[in-house]
């Protein structure tokens, strides 16, 4: 099975306090820790496990700039055989549809049976996988938390409300968006990354992809982000302050009053 996994380099929102620049044009990015989007990392692990079971190879692709190479290399260190960088100034500022169009061109330049994306990334839109599938006219399923390979098709689980699992059969080729928790992504150490440090990662721009840039970038976007902002804080929590002794004493009183201590 030839598998393409689409990954994105994002600020790690678990490790960072995200703050907005004055004026709201962007978030403060200077001191942020970046990493591979958490959902994408599960997708790469799943692709590697599938190939371990049934053969084939995994290609990890990203749209970005030189800085994005580190995440592709990290995912290659997990066991993906190939990397692919999609880089062009015309790609910057594309909306979800533009990103999906770039990925579609990349998929059509290869011979893939399966394309995986993370279920969502830093913007939480959860849209690129479904858009890509529709552009390719391949079937799609989102929030996938189980994949079993069968002949010409996959048996998949989708995570739905309440922690229930919706089981489907889906024909290959297809696009799946992967939910966290589907597997336990392997750890990648410095040594692993060193091993793949000298591997060549091909770079393709719009011309190499045979891509018309008309629908890309801010000019082609039908949905545009105007600004970032932090909503005015509501009353919020009563913040307990003082020494640890004072805070715990106050908290115990409150818990007693609310029936939190039995």
């Amino acid at each position, binding site marked *: 099975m030839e598998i393409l996994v689409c990954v994105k380099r994002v600020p790690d929102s678990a490790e960072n306090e995200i703050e907005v620049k004055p004026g709201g044009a962007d978030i403060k990015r200077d001191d942020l820790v970046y990493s591979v989007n958490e959902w994408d990392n599960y997708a790469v692990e799943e692709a590697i496990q599938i190939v371990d079971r049934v053969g084939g190879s995994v290609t990890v692709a990203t749209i970005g700039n030189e800085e994005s190479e580190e995440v592709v290399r990290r995912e290659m260190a997990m066991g993906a055989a190939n990397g692919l960088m999609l880089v062009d100034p015309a790609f910057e500022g594309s909306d979800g*549809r533009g990103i999906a169009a770039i990925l579609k061109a990349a998929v059509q330049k290869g011979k893939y049976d399966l394309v995986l994306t993370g279920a969502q990334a830093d913007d939480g839109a959860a849209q690129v996988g479904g858009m890509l599938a529709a552009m390719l006219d391949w079937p799609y399923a989102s929030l996938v938390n189980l994949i079993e390979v069968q002949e010409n098709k996959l048996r998949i689980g989708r995570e739905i409300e309440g922690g229930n699992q919706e*089981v489907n059969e889906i024909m290959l080729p297809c696009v799946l968006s992967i939910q*966290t928790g589907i597997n336990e992504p392997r750890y990648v150490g410095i040594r692993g990354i060193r091993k793949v440090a000298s591997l060549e990662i091909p770079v393709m721009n719009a011309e190499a992809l045979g891509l018309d840039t008309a629908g890309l970038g801010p000019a082609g976007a039908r949905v545009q982000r105007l600004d970032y902002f932090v909503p005015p804080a509501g009353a919020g929590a009563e913040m307990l302050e003082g020494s640890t002794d004072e805070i715990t004493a106050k908290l115990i009183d409150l818990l007693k009053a609310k029936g939190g*201590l039995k």
Partner: protein
Amino acid sequence: MAAQVFAFILHKDGKADDTALELLAASQKIAPGAAPIAVVAGAGPAIDGVCQELAAAYPEVWKFASDALAYPNAEIIRKLLLNVLPKGCTLLLPHTTFGMDLGPGLAIKMDAAYVSDVAAVEGRDGETLKAVRQEFNGQVSTHLACDMAGGAVISVRSGCFPASDSGSASGKVVDKSAEVGELSARRRFVEVLQAEVGDVDITKEDVLVSVGRGIGDKENLPVADELAKAMGAVVSCSRPVVDAKWLEKSRQVGTSGKTVKPKVYLALGISGSFQHMGGLKGNPFIVAVNKNPKAPIFQVANVGVVADVLEFVPELTDKIKAAK
């Protein structure tokens, strides 16, 4: 003429989902003055009651009955909507696991704009909609401009557009089952497997000590266990703890886990994402302990402590034990 507005209705066991009326409320912000049409798809007479129920709120309800629509398979529903909706229309969806499955691909096939998980609408200027969404797990919000001229698919965050009580419309139900058209798909629904029941039922507990990513490592779980024991509470958790396999799925609070209704909820190292808070009902007294003073949990908690869980919680446990 303004584009027609449609709302796709989820339903189960012959009743419309709560999101049905929220979409109606959202439509009044997204397309003021439009007469939204509810779209109900399903098998057989089971959906007649749903259509009747909706006609009390929506001016018009389109009913599509077909055996192929018995389960809401997004790949089949997409075909249905492409077969029956007019070009350039606006379609509203709930941002549920079904909406996420359907929306993006449908927007491409309709050649329409797509905005997902809309939390608020700030206005409409001609064909441009100004909407609000959240990014970075709820840490910041954004304003978006969406060009709706070529049609739009908009998914709406649940709970953000409260339904109005004016269920007085005497809408008409139009049976359009004859128009469903070809509905084949390359994805087949097999079954729904119910979530496993764990060793404890967190949905029945009055006091929950809930741990999140801030607990840092599985080895630190005894910190929460000890506190729960001292309080007479039970340990629950947020999604990252389950993803990391530190606790069973049956302990997870949230839209993709359990819906709980405790009296007191201690959130330890939980950021307070929308998805997590969606599983917390019944207006509990919420205590949040988090080292990030900007964590969204402090917006919804009653009482907050900015501290490292691993330092603060053992102190609290000792004091509770001593106070007994």
